[in-house]
Structure formats: C-alpha cells, structure tokens
C-alpha cells in the first residue's frame, strides 16, 4: 500500500504539514476560521519532531500488523478494507488510550477533545494527503515501498 514517508534530510521544520492537516480536519475548511474557532478541538494527524538541526514529520505508519488494532478494547481501531489504512471509528472509541500506549511510533495521540484517539487517516478519499501536497520542500512523499 501507499504510505507517507518522511525525508528528514529535506524537512525544514516549517510545520506547514501540521497546519494543512488541521485545516483539512476542520468543518469550515478555511484556514483563518479553522484556527480562530476550531483549533482547540482538532488534533492534526501529523507532528513535526525536532531536535537541533534534525526534524521530520511523524505520522501513522499504517503497520501491516498494527498493535493499535490488537489493543483496541472497543473495536474502534480497524483497517479500512478499501484503502488498507489503519483508521479509528470515533463512534466506537472509548478514549482508553490503549492504542496510544502500544503505538511503536508514537503516532496515535489523545485527541484535543479528550475523548477519542487521533491519528493520520491518509486523507481518506484524496489521491494525495494534504501534508504531502503542501510540503514546500518535498520532505514528505506518498508512495509504495517494499518491506
């Protein structure tokens, strides 16, 4: 399956990926409105990790043997049969954070609403995730890789 891969050698830590992800997840889809009114309720599915010169954008690896699916007690975390992406059914999520604890990449986080887990869903329905589309330096790629 196609996954998002970070190329840390090109990441400039501008965090535009986080910003565009938040806007896509907003109701208004308008950057100004999203940040004005909805920011506190939306958790971006991508996070830039930084240490000195090194930085890269971290998002769900959509593991083939996803520990978060195994650990989910409510059956919320599942694999979308169409896209093979690991996604969270927010209706069923109990907010127990088992997925947060078992994720080997630290890519599942408690949502800002404090109720459901938040993670990357590969912008379900889009041909290219918005973070990849909007990275100004080609530091995120969306492609099929072996292994």
């Amino acid at each position, binding site marked *: 399956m196609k996954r998002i891969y970070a190329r840390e050698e090109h*990441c400039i*830590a*501008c*965090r535009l990926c986080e*910003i565009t992800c938040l806007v896509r997840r907003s109701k208004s889809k308008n*950057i*100004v409105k999203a940040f004005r009114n909805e920011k506190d309720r939306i958790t971006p599915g991508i996070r830039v990790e930084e240490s000195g010169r090194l930085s890269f954008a971290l998002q769900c690896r959509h593991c083939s043997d996803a520990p978060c699916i195994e650990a989910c007690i409510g059956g919320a975390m599942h694999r979308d049969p169409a896209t093979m992406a690991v996604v969270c059914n927010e209706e069923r999520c109990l907010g127990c954070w088992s997925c947060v604890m078992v994720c080997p990449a630290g890519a599942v986080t408690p949502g800002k609403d404090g109720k459901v887990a938040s993670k990357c869903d590969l912008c379900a329905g889009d041909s290219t995730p918005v973070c990849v589309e909007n990275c100004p330096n080609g530091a995120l790629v969306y492609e099929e890789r072996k292994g």
Partner: protein
Amino acid sequence: MRKWLVQPEFVVDRDPKRCIQCQVCVRQCSNDVHEHNAEEGTITTDSSRCVGCHRCATLCPAGAISIRQAELEFRPNANWSAYAIRNIYKQAEGGGVLLTSMGNDRPYASFWDRMVLNASQVTNPSIDPLREPMELTTFLGGKPDRIEFDRNGGKPRMTTVLGPQLKLELPVMFSAMSFGSISLNASLALARAAREAGTYANTGEGGMHRDIVPYASNMVVQVASGRFGVTAEYLRRAAAIEIKIGQGAKPGIGGHLPAEKVDAAVSETRMIPEGTDAISPAPHHDIYSIEDLKQLIYALKEVTGYEKPVAVKIAAVHNVAAIGSGCVHAGADIVVIDGFRGGTGAAPTQIRDHVGIPIELALAAVDSRLRQEGIRNRASLVVAGGFRSSADVVKAIALGADAVYIATAALISMGCHLCQKCYTGKCNWGIATQDPILTKRLNPEVATRRLTNLLRGWSHEIKEMLGGMGINAVESLRGNRDHLRGVGMTDGELRALGIKQAGEGA
C-alpha cells in the same frame, strides 16, 4: 552605539484578521524579523531587520504577511537621492567598503529592451516547431577555416581534424557559481539540471566537491586567479576548462570568500585551511600579457591532451573587442564575455554599479572585431550578465553570440528573490549560504526540476521565435543582425550594435 541613522528599508505588515499565529514566519526568518511571544500569544515584527526576501510571505499559509518599501521620504532632491543618502549613512557607521550582491541594479538602459526581433509574413513562410524539426543543438569550440574531404572511394570523408567541441542541446548554460558562494544543494541542482537538459554548469573558482564529480562530464571547471581546487584530475574529468580573468559584476578586482563560509567541506574542495579567508587576487599573477595567457591556455591543453575546449572569461570593459581578439589569438576555443549586469556573491557596491559596460554593446563589438579580423570561426562566443528570458537569448544570438550563460535566472528559478544579501551568508532560501539549517531548505530534487522546467520552457520559446522568423536551426540566426531592429536608440547606439532602426527595411 546604536545605528540610528540607517532606517529600515522595508515594512512588514501582518494582517491581524488573517494571522493564525502558526509561527511559520518565526521559524523561517534567519534575520529574526518575527518573534513569538508565548506569554501574550502574539507575534511581533521588527521590520528593521527585513531584507525583503519574501521567505515569510511566501510560506505564510494564511496570506497574512505583506512586505512593502518603507515610505520614509526624504525631501526631493535630484542630486541626493534616498539611495545616495542611505549609502552614506551606512558607510559613516561602518567605515568600510559598501558591499552588495547579485547584479547591477541601477537604472541603466537595457538595450535588449530596445531591440526587437523579426518574423516572416507572406513572402517567406514561418515554421511551426511543433510540426517540423527545429535544431537548437550548438557546438562550442574552434571551427576550422575550411573543411577538406577525401572523395576517393565511395562516400566523401572529412579529412580536416576538428578541435574539441562542447555539444549543447540548447544554447544556454549555467554560469560560474562556486561551491562556497552557493550551497552544495544549489550546486548539485545545477549540475543535475545541466545533465538532464544536455548542457553544462560551471564550478566557479571553488573547485569541484566530490558530490559533483559524478556530473563532471556536464561541468565546465574554472581556473581563476586563486587557483582553488585545481589539480590535473580536476581538469581532466571536466567537459571544458574556463580561465577566469574577470567577472562582469566586479571587473578589475578579485574575490574574497570570508573565513566564516570556509567550513570543512569548502576547505577540502578549495584545498585551503578551514576557517581562513579565500582570497582570489585581482590579476592572475602569472598573466600580464596575451603571451602569458597563451602559456596558461596551452599548459591546460597539455594537461588535458588537447581533448577539452579551453575558454577564457573576461568582463565587458571599454577595450573588450581588442582583448577578446587577443584571447582568440592566444588560443582560446571559447571566449566568454560577462556584462556589467552579471551577478556575484559579493562585490563592492560602487564597482558593481559603475564599472564595466553592457553586454549588448560588448558582444556586438567583439563579434564585429573577430569578423573583421577573419578569426570569428576560431572561437565560440558565449555571453553572460543578466539574461532574463528566452527573448534576450534569441537577441544575443542574432547579435553574434554562440550561446548564453545564465546564473541569476537560474537562481531565481530555484527560489532566489534578489534581496542582494548573499554576502551575509544568511540566505533564507538556502541558496547562498553554508548554514546547515538554511541549506536544508533547498531540496536539490525540487531545485533540479525547477531548473530543467525553466530550460525546457526557454527552449520551446526559442524554437517558436526561430520558427516565426522562418529559421529552422539556431545556427542560421547566429550573427544575423538583420533580424534585429532598434527602437528608440541614438544613431551612435545603433552603430555600436550594428543594427538598423525599426522601420528600415532590408
């Protein structure tokens, strides 16, 4: 003491209705214009540090930032312009030579903008380059006075031995920019784009970094007065060698790469100690005459077994025709003329803006002189210095050039915004800097694609213009000044350029 006489050049406006406090601007500005105040949750702006590079405004996802020139008007004075006054304030504070970067930005007349091209109508058919073949391939190097054939037995065979030639898929190359003045990522992008487009990039005088070596067959290597990084190996692996006598942005003076920019990689490539100034003397200390130049040309040819064309690059100055002719007599296969709008990583402002002549006039003078002497075929003419578009290239070829060198246009295609602050080493676009945090901002893959796109676009446009003139090969346009006409020029200017006034027929 506070530098209180120098006022900000730009004002950075932040639209509070649009700003989302995302801090992209804070993270991107290497001049610390934007500052995030965590306690108040605000972003403040210090316009006095802004260089007008547009990095923040370009990356701002909300379109909240605009940058304008500071509207601090002096009392109108035709002699004492704001520019002149500000320069004196700056100088009175520092006491040094005023430095600047990129090409001459003073409002001298552009002769390209006063020359127009021809097109076919009725009596001679124009050609559609999308339907018919159109040749842009250009060979640089000396051409023989005559070609002889052996006609005995079957097909005629050329017996004349041709000197080494540089084959270009389009008559445009990337001119010299050293590793040191620009980042390795920028150098790599130029080298890769040159290979993809079938043309050449130029190492400048900084030697060849090992990462560029795989692209050596698309690189012209420079031998300049500092002789940085020059070894037999360096010369042999290149496509051609260029002796740099002068640079259009700073004719008559040498170069100075400040010690701060000489990090481990630059030191290794230039073969000088780390953290020392790299000083290129004004003259080559072994060249004081055309005869001396000839010795160096032939020394380089000996080292490379007469297999590589040797170019001599000179700045466009008053006596350029005689000097150009001297270079050809000395054995140069290619003569490069760099006009006064050519860029630089650092030059004294007064030299950049007031020394040298426009490339249009220099090119016309050298081409005419070589023709008069009957030696135009012995060397190719490459011109450089502020070429902005494919139309400039076509006009240069009609005026007598074999090919054009571009550098500023190439940098702009990679993101350069001509803020003219290369000499500070704080280029926000990751081009003219060695700061690892900043150089990372130029992904060589992205830059390579942008450069090849630019060359592809220009090559389509050149073909269109040639087709319009009813010409199907760039060779047929070379030196064909009848395809140019002058608009709004004086008789003297028309004469110097060797072209007719618009409205005059054939």
